[in-house]
């Protein structure tokens, strides 16, 4: 990987980290709505993901099915954004996908192990939104969550449309994304 690519990455990494800490700083000084920070980050990622995916897929062929879209996300999208591919993709073919990245770029600089594990979710919220936005502009409604057990490896879980219908039956009041996260206990 050439130095020039790493230069971009450094810039985006710094901006992303500063965004996270800036938002939390604002929240502390303001009325202390800490719970909204993750939502705000996720929404920002959502808008960015929507825009990005339109630029990336301008010239690509139409996607055949959902699995094709997921493979695109794992390979091309992830490579363009994070300079590497997803390491592992698992699915139950019924709308749940788990993407595993063993060296997630936004976390590698933070720790390698269990240190600062409790701070990891704030740094993943933007990426979750990014993927959710990308999928939404490809026509797929989804919920994306992330989990970290050991830094810098992390897993992104996607619950795609048909799975959401199922959950909508279980939890009919599911409209707000935060409520989904809470209900799913993820």
């Amino acid at each position, binding site marked *: 990987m*050439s*130095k*020039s*690519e*790493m*230069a*971009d*990455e*450094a*810039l*985006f990494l*710094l*901006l*992303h*980290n*500063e*965004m996270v*800490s*800036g*938002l939390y700083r*604002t929240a502390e000084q*303001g009325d202390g709505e800490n719970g909204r920070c993750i939502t*705000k980050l996720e*929404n*920002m*990622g959502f*808008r*960015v993901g*929507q*825009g*990005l995916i*339109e*630029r*990336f897929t*301008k010239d690509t062929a139409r996607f055949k099915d959902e699995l094709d879209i997921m493979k695109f996300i794992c390979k091309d999208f992830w*490579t*363009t*954004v994070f300079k590497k591919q997803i390491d592992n993709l698992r699915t139950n073919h019924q709308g749940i996908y788990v993407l595993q990245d063993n060296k997630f770029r936004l976390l590698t*600089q*933070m*720790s390698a192990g269990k240190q*600062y594990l409790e701070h990891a979710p704030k740094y993943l919220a933007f990426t979750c939104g990014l993927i959710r936005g990308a999928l939404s502009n490809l026509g797929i409604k989804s919920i994306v969550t992330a989990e970290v057990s050991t830094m810098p490896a992390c897993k992104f879980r996607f619950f795609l449309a048909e799975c959401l219908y199922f959950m909508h039956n279980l939890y009919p009041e599911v409209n707000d994304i935060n409520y989904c996260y809470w209900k799913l206990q993820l």
Partner: protein
Amino acid sequence: MLGVVVARLSLSGRRIKESTAAFCARSRFTVPSLFSPGEPRAYVRRGTGKRAGLTLPASCILGIGVLSVSGRRRRGEASRGSSDGAPSHGAEPRRERTAGQAAWRDRAVAGAPRARRCSELFTLTYGALVTQLCKDYENDENVNKQLDKMGYNIGVRLVEDFLARSNVGRCHDFRETADVIAKVAFKMYLGITPSITNWSPAGDEFSLILENNPLVDFVELPDNHSSLIYSNLLCGVLRGALEMVQMAVDVKFVQDTLKGDGVTEIRMKFIRRIEDNLPVGEE
């Protein structure tokens, strides 16, 4: 007359070591160790082509309600070979220029679509950030201040990354600093080479003219945000970065394409050199 300004860019200087340790502790960031032994002999290809202008499809209006974002044809970037005026000083600045050009050329050759997309990612992320700040703070002035503060924090860290990548030597005066900023730093991170003009008679103020600002690629300012300085992050970054190399500067936007001017102009004024303060107890 402005005395000789010595910026301590030496990485063996104590001040820099302290700040690296403090910086690591503060931000849990490890500085990438990229001390490359030799300077690649870059050979600039002229006319490697402008990037094709792209028009965003109308569907890509990120409906935000605060800032309206519309597709705009991106002006092709200036051809990469054209960043050199005749250098008025010696070989070292030329080497610095080619470092920045090499970094940018490699990136453009290795993955032109990807290079463009990385900068789009940054541009879009920055746009989302400004939008969120506009929602959080009612007042444009507060947004500007917040962007400046965030830029300062980024600049403080970015300068370490820059020094590690570019291997530039010590700058002996403010003119050299200006050259390094415009020809190496901007080139490396944003892919543009602003021109340096309007030196004040005392040699302590100059303007950076950016023909196209990559941060405002898809942006229009709505009418109710006329006092918003959209790219204020850049001011903070420059201020923070230079403060880490012992220069206190004042940076502000003079012209802005978003407000209807032809170019974006940033005015930088050298205030003073920051003296090293030894920590208490160490004499």
